[in-house]
């Protein structure tokens, strides 16, 4: 069996002061202190080379969960471990966290405005990751960019254009190229295809699958779109009100959901 690569234990994110009763709350609003429990005691393991889907409706905490793992948000409680590293990565200092973000992880956000700097060129956005890794030869950087642009099926002649002049699908590809620049072991995809038209979405999904197979990268895929989850994910976690209410193989969750909420969700599928 494959090894785990990332393990998360009891991850909790509370917005507000919080109180001892927050974690017992059924909903993501604590009835005692009115704090918002965006993520409530989530534990999971990501295995090497797999695509782990996280599904749930808006506000279920799925984005907060992956953004915590990418250190965009600092969790209130909880631990996360990378295989081979004994310390809880949430206790890393900011320099160590930045290093993990640059070398071990990649992120693709739903909104390219979050993932890309629109003041710099498409190539510059990707080059930033290489420059962080101390690449200091301009021609080597350009060669690596060509490689990454080809891998993510981006037209080379748009490399020096600004992201705002590129289509939505291309912007997501730049995010993917950027995320892959330093060959990370873990890729977080936060609704990567939402808001794109269907033909663009299909090609992007194919690209993600291809990359996962070629690079043997482990992926956590957040999506509210069951179709996307079905096509890409091996396993799925279902989130609601900040908690994982059910997990299983993708086809099992979609064909034999156990939790009432998941049954509702699956039955609402078009």
């Amino acid at each position, binding site marked *: 069996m*494959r090894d785990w690569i990332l393990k998360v234990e009891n991850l909790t994110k509370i917005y507000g002061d919080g109180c001892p009763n927050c974690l017992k709350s059924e909903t993501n609003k604590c009835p005692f202190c009115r704090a918002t429990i965006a993520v409530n005691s989530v534990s999971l393991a990501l295995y090497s080379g797999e695509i782990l889907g996280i599904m749930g409706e808006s506000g279920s905490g799925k984005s907060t969960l992956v953004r915590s793992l990418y250190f965009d948000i600092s969790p209130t409680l909880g631990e996360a471990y990378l295989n081979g590293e004994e310390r809880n990565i949430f206790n890393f200092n900011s320099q160590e966290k930045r290093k993990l973000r640059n070398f071990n992880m990649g992120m693709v956000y739903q909104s390219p405005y979050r993932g890309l700097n629109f003041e710099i060129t498409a190539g510059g956005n990707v080059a930033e990751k290489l420059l962080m890794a101390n690449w200091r030869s301009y021609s080597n950087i350009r060669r690596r960019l060509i490689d990454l642009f080809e891998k993510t099926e981006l037209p080379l002649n748009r490399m020096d254009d600004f992201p705002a002049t590129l289509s939505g699908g291309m912007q997501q590809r730049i995010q993917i190229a950027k995320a892959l620049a330093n060959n990370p072991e873990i890729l977080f995809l936060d609704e990567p295809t939402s808001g794109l038209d269907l033909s663009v979405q299909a090609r992007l999904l194919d690209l993600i699958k291809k990359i996962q197979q070629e690079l043997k990268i482990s992926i956590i895929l957040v999506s509210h779109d069951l179709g996307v989850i079905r096509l890409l994910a091996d396993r799925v976690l279902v989130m609601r009100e900040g908690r994982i209410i059910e997990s299983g193989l993708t086809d099992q969750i979609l064909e034999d959901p*156990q939790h009432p909420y998941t049954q509702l969700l699956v039955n609402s599928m078009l």
Partner: protein
Amino acid sequence: MQDIILKVRNLSKKFNLHLLGGKVITAFQNASFVLKRGEFLGISGKSGSGKSSLIKCIYRTYLSTEGEIVYYPKNGMPIDLARCLDEEIIDLRHRKIGYVSQFFYAIPRVSCLKIVTQTLIQQGVDEDGAKRRAKNMLLRLLIPERLFDAYPSTFSGGERQRVNIAQALVKKAELLLLDEPTASLDKTSRAIVLDEILKLKKKGISVIGIFHDDEELKRFADRILVLEEGKIKEIYKNDKNS
């Protein structure tokens, strides 16, 4: 024990439909049987008798409610498919257990050759080898070469189903689960698919299969398990096949 590949004991599947106020539907119950290595076990029964549910429980598309499904891999420890980790099932699906259903899901706009090739790459076959084997299998299932680069979503129902079958048959599984694989095929393609399945059986692959047509089933089943209203009515040796 060496000659047994699967041992199913007291297996039941019940659906709890929360949307219908917690209504419980029993798909099948107390199913116990063994599958010998290299054996072809046919499942027959009326529609609604629980045939598909049984196969889906073995493949873990359905979670079994009670009982166990012990799988004995050629190399390695026995494993209860009803209770083991999802990760273990994924691993077995990639390497050991194949499944063909009547339905076919694929990423839109991925060519049919690529779909079949990817299955092999996932098993660890190198790209060139995977491509060669995938082409072979598609050709044997009468998918003409001009369709290799086309998307299955544009295919006819029969062609699509043959791609689906190619995807399952191309990897050398130890255990193959078939859920009416030929249901949507015309006579010619059905004959070809059955021929391929027969070849696999001759290679010693163990199969549990549901077939639309009892005559078809009797052509190669070693034994036939008959389900009636969710219970095993009988398991008998199929004398026609020898």
